[in-house]
């Protein structure tokens, strides 16, 4: 039987990908950031999930204003790195997990989540930067990946409560899959940042730390946080953090915090990294 064994939360800041790709990780600005990632890297090297469900968002790469899906799940055998305007990142092609992805898709739609089923989707920094953070620069990514793309750039985003419940439904889907498969789920994006407008550069580290405390120990407290509170308190792009609620929903009520790290700034963002395990692992 398949099992969701752990969850990872991480910001997916493009500058991190650029630092990896251009060998800047030992520069003074970046050293503390990449050092802070080390324990998570070690953890995943030991844990070796077979499949990572990566909850991320597209940033005008695969999708455009022509069609914006609230939740899109990737069922393809592979996903190519997207050209975001600099040429595609030179990272391995992302291998999908079509059979499990279809199993999850069917289960989610029967559980009344209105998924978009996607077979053609170049993946941008939202998905590849978290892989770089956790796995560094391998020849091939050491896991299969199921991309789960969430709309966070068009208002209105899905509610935190919907995201949390989607996580629960994903867990149920995984646990009804007959093959022995170790699944980890990544929530990506956040924490506080605002890229746009006169308020660009906004950071609210205090809010983020409290939010992380609650995410780990009392997610019910934050799942009804309103869109306007996220926009106001964590910046217009901070609302990405709702994607961590999907990850959290897929885990036990009581989880073990394996690792947590935050750092400010990474580019224009309060960087956050979190590793959670279900207690019975």
């Amino acid at each position, binding site marked *: 039987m398949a099992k969701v064994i752990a969850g990872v939360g991480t910001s997916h800041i493009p*500058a991190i990908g650029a630092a990896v790709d251009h060998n800047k990780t030992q520069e003074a600005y970046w050293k503390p950031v990449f050092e802070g990632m080390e324990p998570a890297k070690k953890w995943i090297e030991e844990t070796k999930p077979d499949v990572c469900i990566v909850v991320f968002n597209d*940033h*005008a*790469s695969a999708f*455009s*204003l*022509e069609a914006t899906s609230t939740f899109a799940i990737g069922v393809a055998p592979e996903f190519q790195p*997207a*050209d*975001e*305007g*600099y*040429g595609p990142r030179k990272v391995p092609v992302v291998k999908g997990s079509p059979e499990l992805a279809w199993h999850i898709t069917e289960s989610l739609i029967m559980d009344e989540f209105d998924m978009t089923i996607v077979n053609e989707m170049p993946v941008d920094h939202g998905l590849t930067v978290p892989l770089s953070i956790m796995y560094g620069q391998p020849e091939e990514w050491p896991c299969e990946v199921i991309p789960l793309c969430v709309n966070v*750039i*068009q*208002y*209105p985003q899905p509610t935190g409560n919907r995201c949390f419940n989607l996580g629960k439904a994903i867990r149920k889907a995984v646990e009804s899959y007959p093959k022995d498969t170790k699944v980890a789920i990544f929530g990506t994006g956040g924490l*506080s940042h*605002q*890229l*746009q*407008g*006169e*308020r*660009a*550069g*906004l*950071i*609210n*580290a*205090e*809010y983020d730390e409290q939010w992380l405390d609650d995410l780990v120990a009392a997610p019910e407290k934050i799942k009804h946080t309103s*869109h*306007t509170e996220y*926009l*106001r*308190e964590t*910046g*217009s*792009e901070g609302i990405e953090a709702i994607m961590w609620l999907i990850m959290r929903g897929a885990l036990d009520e009581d989880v073990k915090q394996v690792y947590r790290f935050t750092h*400010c*700034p990474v*580019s*224009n963002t*309060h960087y956050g990294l979190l590793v959670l395990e279900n207690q019975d692992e």
Partner: protein
Amino acid sequence: MTHQEKDYHDIPGTYVFDGSHFRKGYHLNMFCMSLNKQENRDKFRHDEEAYLAQYPLTDEQRKAILERNWLEMLRLGGNIYYTFKLAIFDGMTMQAAGAAMSNTDMTEEDFKQMMISGGRSIDGNRSKKETK
């Protein structure tokens, strides 16, 4: 288009990309997105005005694009993830774009320094009522 008052309109210096912005900025954003493709970047570099003629932009939008008026693009319906494609095209960093949108004399260096010092403070920046 009726302008409905929303509670997030009270947040200062923030352009929430809702349906009303979407409708205003559709073609502006679709132009920006086209720069994902190398062939389009080449064409735009060769003749910006000719390239823009393909898109049914308003005169104000065209002007804001040609002048790289980042804040004005947001006001005219731009979405930062789309307009940043144009900043990438120009070789700008996110900090340079942030400084330019701050609408003050901030330089890229100032902006970087602000980030290293913990970013723009939330205090005083929650509500238009505070900033006035």
